[in-house]
């Protein structure tokens, strides 16, 4: 329990605040405007102001029906169950099983199913359309994501986080990303299909398109809105942390630093910071791409997933397997 609280209060909440701030500043820089500059020095407390504002937002309906609240609870519960497999550091890895890396995938599908229930229960056409888009996307995004994971598993010789990281090193030349010619493609497929699976921008046609205003994103107010927004951030963060661990060496530190820190809390803190640094870098790159590109249409997203990502992922898996058998 104390571990869970530590993860939420010292990793996830500060990360959400920091990325909220950095994302807004980056967006402002790209759009030739100032960005947050009112709440605190250089607008640093803007995330706190955002939180207070969201908490004060009223629900569209005076009271959220119990069924919708239950679905939101299930959605959040499914998503946050993946905290147990969040690969933050080597010292406090709660679940390091053979199927650990697949849990977020199932959680993504579960989240889509709960979104479907919420939207259908809401009873408006924008809600139906938006949740159907979310569900279709999740189904089409899951397949290439799964195959991209298999590419890494084949290269690493297993699917435990420790096995995947044992196959890599702190040095970029030993990351799985550069282990064989198919892995860079697998990495790209994994990132894009993750955005599709969790309906993250610019693949968020079910949530943020203007014609679905009044849909899934508009159902919530107050605490429910905060929970919904935080779970969307968490999904993005989770996928980034997985990408970093699968392809970019995760929390791994150079040998001499590991030896200097020994085992225990200091090593855990430095490893977590290393992972977060890589994670934030990746998230900011994606954020920059999102800011300058149009939002993709739902049928184009599913088309991309079935016609481009899935075949490419299968080819990448074949190349990885052949490379493992004949070259390594």
């Amino acid at each position, binding site marked *: 329990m104390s571990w869970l609280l530590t993860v939420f209060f010292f990793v996830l909440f500060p990360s959400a605040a920091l990325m909220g701030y950095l994302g807004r500043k980056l*967006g402002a820089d*790209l*759009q*030739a*405007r100032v960005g947050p500059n009112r709440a605190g020095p250089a607008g640093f407390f803007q995330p706190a102001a955002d939180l207070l504002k969201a908490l004060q937002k009223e629900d569209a309906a005076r009271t959220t029906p119990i069924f919708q609240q239950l679905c939101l609870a299930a959605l959040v519960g499914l998503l946050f169950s993946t905290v147990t497999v969040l690969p933050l550091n080597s010292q406090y890895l709660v679940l390091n099983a053979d199927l650990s890396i697949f849990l977020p995938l199932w959680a993504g599908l579960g989240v889509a199913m709960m979104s479907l229930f919420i939207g259908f229960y809401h009873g408006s*056409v*924008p809600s*139906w*359309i938006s949740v159907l888009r979310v569900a279709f996307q999740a189904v089409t995004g899951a397949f290439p994501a799964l195959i991209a994971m298999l590419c890494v598993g084949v290269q690493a010789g297993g699917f435990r986080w420790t096995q995947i990281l044992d196959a890599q090193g702190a040095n970029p030349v030993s990351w799985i990303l550069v282990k064989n010619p198919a892995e860079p493609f697998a990495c790209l497929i994994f990132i894009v299909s993750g955005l599709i699976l969790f309906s993250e921008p*610019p693949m968020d*046609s079910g949530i*943020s*398109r*203007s*014609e679905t*205003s009044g849909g899934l994103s508009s159902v919530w107010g107050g605490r429910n809105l905060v929970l919904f927004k935080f779970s969307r951030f968490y999904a993005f963060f989770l996928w980034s942390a997985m990408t970093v661990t699968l392809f970019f060496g995760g929390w791994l530190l150079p040998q001499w630093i590991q030896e200097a820190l020994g085992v225990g809390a200091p090593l855990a803190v430095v490893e977590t910071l290393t992972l977060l640094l890589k994670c934030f870098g990746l998230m900011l790159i994606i954020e920059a791409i999102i*800011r*300058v*590109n*149009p*939002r*993709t*249409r*739902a*049928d*184009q997203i599913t088309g991309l997933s079935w016609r481009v990502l899935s075949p490419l992922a299968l080819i990448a898996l074949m190349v990885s397997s052949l490379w493992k058998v004949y070259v390594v």
Partner: protein
Amino acid sequence: VRFEVLKTDPSTWEIGPYHPALPGPMKLRLQSDGELIISARYEIGYLHRGLEKCLELHPWIASIAYVDHLEPEASAFGEAAYCLAVEEIGKIPVPPRAKVIRIILLELSRVSSHLSAVAKMASSVGTETAVHYVLRDRERILDLFELLSGARFSLNFMRFGGVASDITEGFIERVLEVCEMVRHRLKEYNDLFTFNHAFLDRTRAVGVLDRKTVLDFGITGPNARASGVGFDVRKQHPYLGYEELDFETPLGREDEGMLGDAHGRFMVRLREIAQSIEILKHISEGIPPGDFASIRVERDFRLPRGEAFSRIESPRGLMGCHLVSDGGATPARAQFTTPSSAVVGALPLLLKGARTEDLAPILSSLDISVAEADR
């Protein structure tokens, strides 16, 4: 193998009167089969201000401030159409200098309005960065309006027989500076999103307006020109001395995609911005000396009996003003023809068969002004 077809009823979806996908206060009643719109009906009038009736109730001199509100994005065009009709009835001459100042104002307004349309289009597909760039550049044009008239939107600058005041010192230099800036920026827009693959996917072969629909509904302006109908009032029925200017009317091209699609309309507007910049550069270099107005309009200004119909090329197409004078202190009848009314009429036909996700890009590519349709 037997496949079972799941039969579902169409959904009825009412959008508006206030909705981010709409160009203004209006209502759309859509019937959709899944994501496909199978029928669309529209309802306008939420922004009806009784503008034409207002004109009949106010003295001639006060009416220019009212016609400003015909289309707030490009208020100079309402003023120009109205003044031209008054000048035709009263046979009031317009000095050459005033004509050139009017053309400068109109072309700047056209650029400003088209930039606004570009921003709306970018916003409709979720490219917020492009929106900020375009609106930042449009601010420079609004600065010029402020320098010239003291106002940024409702300019109230044209007068019967000329304009309210002469251009200020350094104005022409600033116009040329802004022209050069916009010319460079057009290239930036193209690099940023005009030929962005995702933007092309969202706008090509979407909301196709064919030539027959254009002619049937009397659609004019960039929307018609993108469908290959090369009608431009500045060319066909020149006014204010446009006949002396050498410029081309950009038309939609089939080699860029489907003729009359959303991307084609977007491209025509970008080309018209470039065209207006060339007109501005050309005309600013040779502004003639002389008076900026031929008469001074007093409070008790009256026109002789008569009627006139003036037409001009506004950023959205043909704008006409039918004016009747009975010799009194106010217009006996004032009536405007606006291009957006024709486009709104074609919406049911245009939206049928479109995807719900394409609704916002289609509407923004048409650059409908609900203000001028409702009047």
